[in-house]
Structure formats: C-alpha cells, structure tokens
C-alpha cells in the first residue's frame, strides 16, 4: 500500500529559533485558507495607490532628468576628467547586485532544500527581475547616443560594425541579458500553478480570461506536476551558476583594467558576495513592511526572518573579509600606486564614503549575532536601509576613487554628482518600485502551491504515529 503524508504530531515542542527545512506553519490549517489569504492580498487599497503615485512621480523625475541630459549632453551628468564613470555605473552595479539575492533565495536555497525560502522567494524573484530591468537601463543612460545601444549585440549588419568579443562590456551584455531572461522565465514558471488557482477562483470575466491565458491551461494533473518538478529543478540548477557568473562578469569590467584598486583577482568572489549581501538587504526592506501591511506574519514567520538574518550575517562577514583582503593586497602590492590609492580611499579624499561602507556593511550587521535583534522585524528593517546605503557606497568607492586617483598626479581629480545624476538615481528607484507595486497587486506574492506542500494534507483516517512523506 502506498504511504500517505500525515499531519505533524500536534503536541510536539518546536524549537522556535531553529529555521530548517522542516518548517511549520501552525496558523495555516487548510489549502483553502492559503488560497483565500494570499489572494486577498491582491485587493488594491488607498495606501497602495499612494505608494504607486509616489513611485511614478519618482520615475517622472528620472525621465525628466534623462530628457534634459539627451538635450544638453552627457556633460550635465557631472562627468569631468578623469572621472568618466559616476553615479550611472555605480547604480548599474548596485541594481545588478540587488537582483542576486532573488536568485540565491529562489534557486540555490531550493537546491539546498531550505524551508524558510518558501515565504520569501516569490517576492525575491520578482525583485530580481525588476532590479535587473532597472540595472539594464543604466548602461543605456550612460551612452551619449542611447538610441545606438544595440551596437553591442553581434549580428550581421550593413555598417560592418562588430563588437569586440574580448571586451568585458560585451561579456556584460550577454551576462545581463541571459540573467534577465532566465530570472523572468524562472519567475513565470513558478507562477503558472498559482495562475491556475487564480483562474479557478476569479469572478471578474476579464481577469479570469487573463489568468486562463497566463496559466496556459494548467490543470494540476500528475503528468504536469511530474514535468514541472523536473523542469523547475533544472532551471534552479542553471540559475545557480548563473548567479555566480553574472556578477563575476560585472566585476571583470573593473578587474580587467590595469588600474589601482581594480586589477585584483579577488574581484569576482568579492562582487558576488557583495551582490548577495545587497540583495538580502533589499529583501528585508521589501518583505518586512509587506508582511506587516498584508498581515502575513503567520506566513513570513519570525523563524524565516531569523534564518534570513543569519544568512545576512554570514554574507556580511564574507564581505568584511573581502574588504580586509583588499586592504592587505593594497598594502602588500609593493607599488606606491596601490598604496597611495588605498591611503587616499581610506583616510584621504574619499574617507567618508569608505567609512560609510565599513560601518553600514561590517559593523552594524554584527548586531545580528543577537538572536533578539534577528527576531526583531523593526531592527531588521532599519538595518536593511543601512545595508542598502552601504552597498551603494561600496560601488561608489570601487569606481570613483580609482578613476580620481590614477598613476600620475596630473590624472588626479574629484567627482561631484549633479542634480541630473540624482534625478536619474531617484527615477531608478521609482521605476523599480513601480513595477514591484504593480506586481504585488496583480500576482500572488507568495507561492500558494508551495505553501500547500508545507502543510499537511487532509486525511480521512488519523495517523497517530505520523506518516511517511
């Protein structure tokens, strides 16, 4: 006889501070409850309209700044020799990094069977797609003639223009486009069974039709699940090395150049760790208010936040180690160029930016050694804001100090962002949050089918001793 899943023993004492693959949601009793509570989050509210308006206003500020930049030329963006990469490239690296935690949570934690992933992975995946969409804008914004961005894509053309395949900028195009496509595909595939649930519950005929189309006629049959499970596993297996490769490729933009502070072999793992760290920061920034606003505390439990905070603490230490290694490499490099560069970055011209990152990314996260703070959503939210700020400045200190302090004194200079830079930066947040806010009211922010896997199925006969899974 086949084994059947049985409910968890009810009287068992659960260790509240240990988040593992064996997660429990005592407040979620039935499959119908999951559907109802998660679908209820899709009703638009006044606060949501308010936030969406703010996001669109921010986007309009960015769009206005860009239009002015196209009219007046790139000079209005604060570029002045020798610093010809500024806020746009800093923000490009920042947004690509934000995307990384999404794939880490959805793909890598899936392969490791980390149970706490279920609560936060859908939001993280959506965050990944929108963050990469935002990142992709910046190299285009950075172009003097943005309408010619497609010159980087190799295809036979009458202009006889071919990109240079040995350039990291061309590698970037491939890496980012692949990452965007695979992340969006991964997000969509996971959504198909949930779209089917919404199709079957929806009363509005237009939305019903929309969800019927998006669900592709999914029927939850055993054949469909069998192929779905296999495809999802392979997509996760592909996405995992992709996460590592994309930010490694982004790091090559710098590491391939023979410049003080950039030409380092540590850059790929350093960038990947930083990307995951900044993404985790953004996950907290988004998930904690959402959990409160949608009243989903019994889905995104303190155990889940605790587990994610532990991961954040670990990655912060990896990032801290990378900073120390960089200092050591600069000191031991044996060239005055490297040593002067590091001195200038840490105690000279850019000391304020360097100390912002050290405090935000290395000192404040040490608070997560305290279990009480790991389980305090308000503190996690505040900390996440510091991490976001710290990680933006980390990219700033990677890019600007090197360009402003090259080998010869005549190559030394400064950098001051203008209102156009700031307008476009604000616009990028508006663009990101606009898509995100639209997403959370159109599509389920948590995977209903995966939650159902975590709660025991209804049984005709009780299984006192527990059943096989």
């Amino acid at each position, binding site marked *: 006889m086949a084994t059947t899943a049985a409910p968890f023993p009810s009287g068992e004492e659960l260790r509240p501070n240990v988040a593992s693959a064996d997660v429990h949601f005592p407040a979620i009793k039935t499959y119908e409850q999951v559907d109802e509570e998660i679908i209820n989050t899709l009703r638009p509210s006044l606060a949501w309209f308010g936030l969406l308006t703010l996001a669109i206003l921010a986007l309009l500020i960015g769009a206005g700044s860009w239009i002015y930049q196209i009219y007046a030329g790139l000079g209005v963006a604060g570029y002045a020799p020798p610093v010809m990469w500024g806020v746009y490239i800093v923000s490009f690296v920042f947004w690509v990094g934000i995307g990384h935690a999404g794939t880490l949570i959805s793909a890598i934690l899936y392969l490791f069977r980390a149970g706490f992933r279920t609560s936060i992975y859908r939001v993280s995946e959506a965050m990944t797609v929108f963050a990469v969409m935002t990142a992709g804008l910046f190299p285009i914004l950075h172009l003097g003639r943005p309408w010619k961005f497609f010159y980087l894509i190799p295809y036979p053309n009458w202009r006889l223009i071919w990109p240079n395949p040995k350039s990291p900028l061309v590698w970037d195009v491939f890496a980012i486009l692949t990452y965007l496509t695979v992340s969006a595909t991964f997000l969509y595939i996971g959504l198909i069974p949930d779209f089917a649930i919404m199709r079957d519950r929806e009363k509005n005929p237009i939305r019903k039709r929309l969800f019927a189309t998006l669900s592709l006629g999914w029927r939850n049959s055993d*054949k469909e699940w069998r192929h779905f499970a296999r495809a999802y596993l392979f997509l996760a297996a592909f996405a995992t090395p992709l996460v590592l490769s994309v930010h490694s490729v982004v790091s090559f933009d710098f590491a391939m150049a023979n410049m003080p502070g950039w030409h380092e072999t540590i850059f790929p793992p350093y960038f990947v760790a930083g990307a995951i760290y900044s993404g985790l920061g953004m996950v907290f920034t988004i998930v904690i208010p959402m959990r409160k606003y949608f009243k989903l505390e019994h889905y995104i439990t303190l155990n889940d936040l605790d587990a994610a905070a532990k991961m954040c603490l670990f990655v912060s230490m990896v990032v801290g180690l990378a900073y120390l290694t960089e200092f050591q490499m600069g000191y031991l490099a044996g060239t005055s160029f490297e040593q002067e560069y590091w001195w200038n970055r840490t105690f000279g011209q850019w000391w304020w930016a360097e100390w912002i990152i050290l405090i935000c990314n290395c000192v404040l996260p040490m608070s997560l050694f305290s279990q009480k703070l790991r389980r305090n959503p308000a503190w996690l939210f505040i900390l996440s804001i510091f991490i976001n700020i710290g990680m933006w400045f980390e990219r700033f200190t990677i890019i600007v100090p090197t360009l402003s302090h090259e080998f010869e004194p005549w190559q030394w200079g400064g950098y001051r962002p203008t209102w156009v830079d700031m307008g476009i930066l604000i616009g990028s947040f508006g663009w990101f949050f606009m898509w995100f806010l639209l997403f959370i009211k159109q599509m389920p922010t948590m995977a209903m089918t995966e939650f159902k896997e975590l709660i025991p199925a209804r049984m005709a006969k009780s299984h006192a001793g527990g059943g096989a899974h």
Partner: protein
Amino acid sequence: MPGVIAAFHELDAAVHAVEALKKERFGDLTVYTPTPHHEFDEVLARPESHVRRWTLIGGIFGCTFGYWIWVWVSRYWPLVVGGKAIVAWVPYTIFGFEVMVLIGSLATVFGMFANSRIPRLTATVGYDPRFSGGHFGVWVETTPDRADAAAELLRAHGAEEVRSER
C-alpha cells in the same frame, strides 16, 4: 474518450481509490492535486520525465553556438586586442557558458510545455476548478460499459462527488 471524474476531499482516500482502480485494471488514470504529492507517484508508477533530454540537448547546442558565433565573428572581422589571439578561447568561454544557460533553460521550459501538453487553450473534459484549491481529483478514461463500475469504486473509497463526462 469518455470517462468518470471524482473529487476527493482527503488525500488518503484518493490514493486508495487510485490503487483500487489500478487493481481493477482501469488503465488510463489522471490524478489532479493542488500541489505535488509523491504518494501518487508510487501508485501510478509513471516513467521518468523526459524534460532532462531537452535540457541536455539545449545546453549542448547553446554552448556550441555561444563559442561558434564569436569564433565566426572573429574570423570574419579580425580584431587584434590586448595581445590576445584573434580567436581567444578563454574569454569566449564566457559566451559559451552564458548561451548554454540561456538556451538550456529555454529548452527546459519548452520541454516541460511539450511533455505536459501546454499551452492548452481549449476547454477540456475531466477537470474541476476545485482541484487547484483543496480537493484531489481522479479522472478515469473508460468505455461506457465500465463507467458505472468505476464510479461505484470511486464512491466506495469516499469520493465527495462522482460524475461521467464525455
């Protein structure tokens, strides 16, 4: 093909009903579950999914194409940069890898679609909206002369509702 469809509220009842149907040699069964349940895998004993072949072929094709396109471009329009060979294998590995992941992933998705027979945009028999919620469904494709026997068996195992469809 006509058949009988049953909705179950409990997992174990549905599993036992499928076992009984298999024992009575009702061959073509489809089970609907709100979320994957391995209990049915054991009973139905379906073969391994073929999606992995799509993944493998897509990955190999993507990797080959990723290298080939740049080798071709480099030979067609040679650029000597950074002291590297015109066809430089090491940097081209990035393209090989990225395109392998891209085509491999898309092939996996197409493999899933092809094997699951989706997109399915027309109305189909043998499905009930409850199956995406909290119910388990069993669809038995059978000839009219055996439909009553199948319905009786499903009811005996605790089906909440049984109906014939064609």
